[in-house]
């Protein structure tokens, strides 16, 4: 065996738990982080992956049982489990594209920032996982790692465009001067929402209605606002539906099974974000080093700092819209023809869905719920279509997926059009498809530069 073969089999045995930490350690050093801090961070990332895998195992066990019972006892086929963004992010970073996504994302940002194509300096390294997901889906569909990396690079550029375009509206509406949101889940919602927001403007009567955010938060916040309680309630309701037929003859064991399910799902809702927090802690040194590295080299013309849309979702309209969308999303998951997805972990991120379209909707909750519902309907079909691919890349990245088990998907980013669009372009057109998306992105930058004020207004800026 030659050296490369040995290296490859060594690397294959270790998987993401060890590989990503090694890469992160090296990147952090290159970007100028101290060795001790970089080392600790790298090990933290490995620990986080093990933690996430444990919790996913718990969720899987609980929900695949429900999924099977729904088919056998009730005759409803919901065999795609919503594992949530924490799992999706971990999967994305653990893929082959994910290993390289941080340098790829930084290089793209630099290459576009220095000549002034983009105004956004994206310091939100954590959310590079969205680009990694897109890239790994393209690699899965095409079998080519270089094509996946190219797709991740194009996706990074595209999100920078969306960040630039929506920045003025975001800055005004959320009072965040100098900030843009090049976020892979919330930013692509803006172009998709645009026609429906326009349509809403044309509906007499309805276009003038608004709702009171504080009232909504008070009445719904205690159930849907707390992920732990939401996990418990969803577990109990799902359990009742799935296992109702087993009550006859085995009342106490069935009741016990349902209550245990409620607690298991409450545990997932609490534990999964905690595990992701560990992953984020591990990424902080590399993300800080990257931020300092980039800030030092960025010129002194007007630069927006690109941040996570988490800085938006504290806003009352985003929270209220998210709360109202929880029951709507659950209802849609039941009634939409052909849907196989069982919503769960990502019900907690519904405030993100409309966060970036709030400036366009002027913060009007009725309108955001209207547009959000349409985004959800599209989203279900995107997520259903993506499920086999997401399941395959999760397995390929070393996550414990049982044989012949249910499929996985998520709202972030399964409900977003961009991962599916990239994957289909990569699958059917190959390099030409990725090239087309690159040309589209370049054209958008070009036309945006030609008339920034009009574009800004379209995304919700006042135009003053």
């Amino acid at each position, binding site marked *: 065996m030659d050296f490369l073969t040995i290296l490859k089999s060594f690397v294959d045995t270790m998987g993401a738990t060890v590989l990503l930490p090694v890469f992160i350690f090296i990147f952090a050093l290159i970007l100028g982080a101290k060795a001790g801090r970089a080392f600790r961070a790298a090990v933290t990332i490995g620990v986080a992956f093990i933690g996430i895998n444990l919790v996913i195992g718990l969720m899987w066990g609980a929900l695949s049982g429900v999924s099977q019972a729904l088919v056998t006892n009730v005759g409803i086929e919901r065999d795609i489990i919503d594992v949530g963004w924490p799992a999706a992010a971990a999967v994305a970073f653990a893929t082959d594209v994910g290993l390289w996504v941080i340098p790829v994302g930084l290089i793209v940002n630099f290459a576009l920032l220095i000549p002034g194509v983009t105004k956004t300096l994206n310091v939100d390294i954590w959310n590079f996982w969205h680009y990694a997901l897109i890239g790994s889906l393209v690699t899965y569909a095409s079998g080519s790692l270089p094509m996946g990396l190219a797709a991740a690079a194009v996706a990074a550029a595209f999100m920078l465009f969306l960040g630039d375009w929506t920045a003025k509206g975001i800055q005004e509406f959320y009072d965040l001067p100098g900030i843009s949101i090049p976020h892979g889940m919330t930013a692509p919602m803006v172009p998709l929402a645009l026609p429906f927001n326009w349509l809403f403007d044309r509906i007499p009567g309805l276009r003038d209605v608004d709702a009171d955010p504080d009232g909504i*938060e008070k009445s719904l916040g205690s159930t849907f606002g707390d992920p732990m309680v939401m996990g418990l309630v969803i577990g109990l309701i799902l359990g009742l539906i799935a296992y109702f037929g087993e009550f006859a003859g085995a009342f106490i064991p069935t009741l016990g099974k349902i209550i245990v399910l409620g607690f298991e799902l409450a545990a997932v809702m609490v534990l999964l*974000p905690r595990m992701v927090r560990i992953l984020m802690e591990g990424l902080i040194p590399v993300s800080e080093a990257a931020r300092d590295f980039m800030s030092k080299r960025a010129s002194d013309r007007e630069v927006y700092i690109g941040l996570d849309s988490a800085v938006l979702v*504290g*806003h009352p309209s985003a929270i209220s819209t998210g709360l109202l969308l929880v029951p709507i999303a659950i209802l849609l998951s039941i009634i939409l023809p052909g849907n196989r997805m069982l919503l769960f972990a990502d019900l907690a991120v519904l*405030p993100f869905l409309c966060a970036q379209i709030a400036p366009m909707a002027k913060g009007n909750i009725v309108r955001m719920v209207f547009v959000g519902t349409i985004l959800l309907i599209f989203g279900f079909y995107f997520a259903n279509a993506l499920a086999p691919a997401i399941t395959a890349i999760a397995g390929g990245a070393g996550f414990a997926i049982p044989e012949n088990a249910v499929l996985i998907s998520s709202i972030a980013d399964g409900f977003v059009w961009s991962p599916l669009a990239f994957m289909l372009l990569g699958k059917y057109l190959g390099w030409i498809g990725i090239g087309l998306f690159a040309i589209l992105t370049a054209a958008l930058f070009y036309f945006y530069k030609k008339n920034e004020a009009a574009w800004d207004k379209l995304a919700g800026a006042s135009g003053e």
Partner: protein
Amino acid sequence: MAKTVIVSCGTGIATSTVAAIAIEEACKEAGIDVVTKQCKGQEIPELLKQGADLIVTTSVMRFDPGIPVVKGLAFLTGVGKDAIVQEILDHLRE
């Protein structure tokens, strides 16, 4: 006795982790004993009942909590980070 800092953001996971770790590191360096509690904006009233000395938030603060509030956005952007670290340390030394 350790000072308690509530660190809030939109999710209680993402950006508040960045702020909380920066606060812990700065306090360790300054020799201040500190405990950080991360949460979402809506959970602040609940945590206030358990007692806290300072709130650092990366999202919007929507009511007057009766204790000092520091805007933590600079922890994310890196712009003006030293100034808010100083502001936080000053509050905690009082």
